[in-house]
């Protein structure tokens, strides 16, 4: 009988020692904005055409001064290029070379209409060398054209 009592007492004591738990929570919200950044590094480019003959246009080029840089977290982007100069005496072309994170569209003769320079840009950062070439004919005479060249990342 005493043993039975001891068993009953032990069973009640064990039942009373439950391991409790409580919970709490909070949110984490990450808001990603559209990121479309393009920039030029290296500074201004100066091309001087100071020699040539009447057999054809003279030319000057620069492929080392300026680089094009971009970053985007969207798909199907391209970079276009345009000049602000409407009256151009000495044609100027630009080409994106050594492209990473996109595809070069080949040389573009600058005008005030935006033209594709680099295409196929998606969810990436990229770079390219900018290769400029200017030409002049004897008939164009002497002078200078100052271009402000604008690069724009936009939807394809």
């Amino acid at each position, binding site marked *: 009988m005493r043993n039975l009592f001891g068993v009953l007492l032990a069973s009640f004591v064990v039942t009373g020692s439950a391991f409790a738990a409580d919970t709490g929570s909070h949110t984490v919200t990450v808001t990603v*904005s559209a990121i479309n950044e393009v920039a030029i590094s290296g500074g201004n480019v100066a091309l001087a055409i100071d020699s040539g003959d009447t057999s054809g246009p003279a030319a000057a080029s620069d492929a080392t001064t300026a680089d094009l840089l971009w970053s985007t977290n969207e798909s199907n982007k391209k970079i276009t290029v345009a000049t602000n100069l409407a009256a151009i005496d000495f044609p100027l072309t630009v080409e994106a070379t050594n492209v990473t994170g996109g595809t070069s569209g080949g040389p573009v003769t600058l005008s005030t209409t935006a033209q594709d320079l680099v295409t196929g840009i998606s969810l990436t950062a990229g*770079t390219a060398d900018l290769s400029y070439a200017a030409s002049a004919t004897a008939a164009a005479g002497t002078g200078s054209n100052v271009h402000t060249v604008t690069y724009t990342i936009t939807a394809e």
Partner: protein
Amino acid sequence: MRRTLFAVALGALTSAPVLAMDLAVTGSWTLPITAADLVAGAGSALRTSLDGGPGDVRVDVDLTGGDDDRWRLEIRRSDASWDPDLRIWVRRTGDGTGTGAIAGGDTWVEVGPTNSVFFEGSGDRQDVPLQLRLGGLSLGATPAAYLTALQYTLVDTP
């Protein structure tokens, strides 16, 4: 009869509900990602990890059975609309206040979808500050609001 009545009374006393220790979690973390988070502007990737403030979230453990009443805090993530490449870490940046003890969790702990131990303690502790870290960020995370919930479980331990 006397023994029977005593056993019933003793059973009634010891089977009364145990007062559970209480957990309170306050705060949240909202993180905007913009072009300012590029490592070096155009031509560069996004920073791969970003940290919140040292006390964006705070935890209180109360109603323990005294300074010797031990407990542990577990943590897990419950995703609502989340990029699978994004990762979350959490760490304790202070001990809070109170007469109890606290240990662990002062180095970064990655928060996954199942409970893992974050830190332990005994007795009441209030205002324990937590800091969060986001990792796995890249330009592959398209523009959107990504949402998850961090769930904390306080476990009374022997």
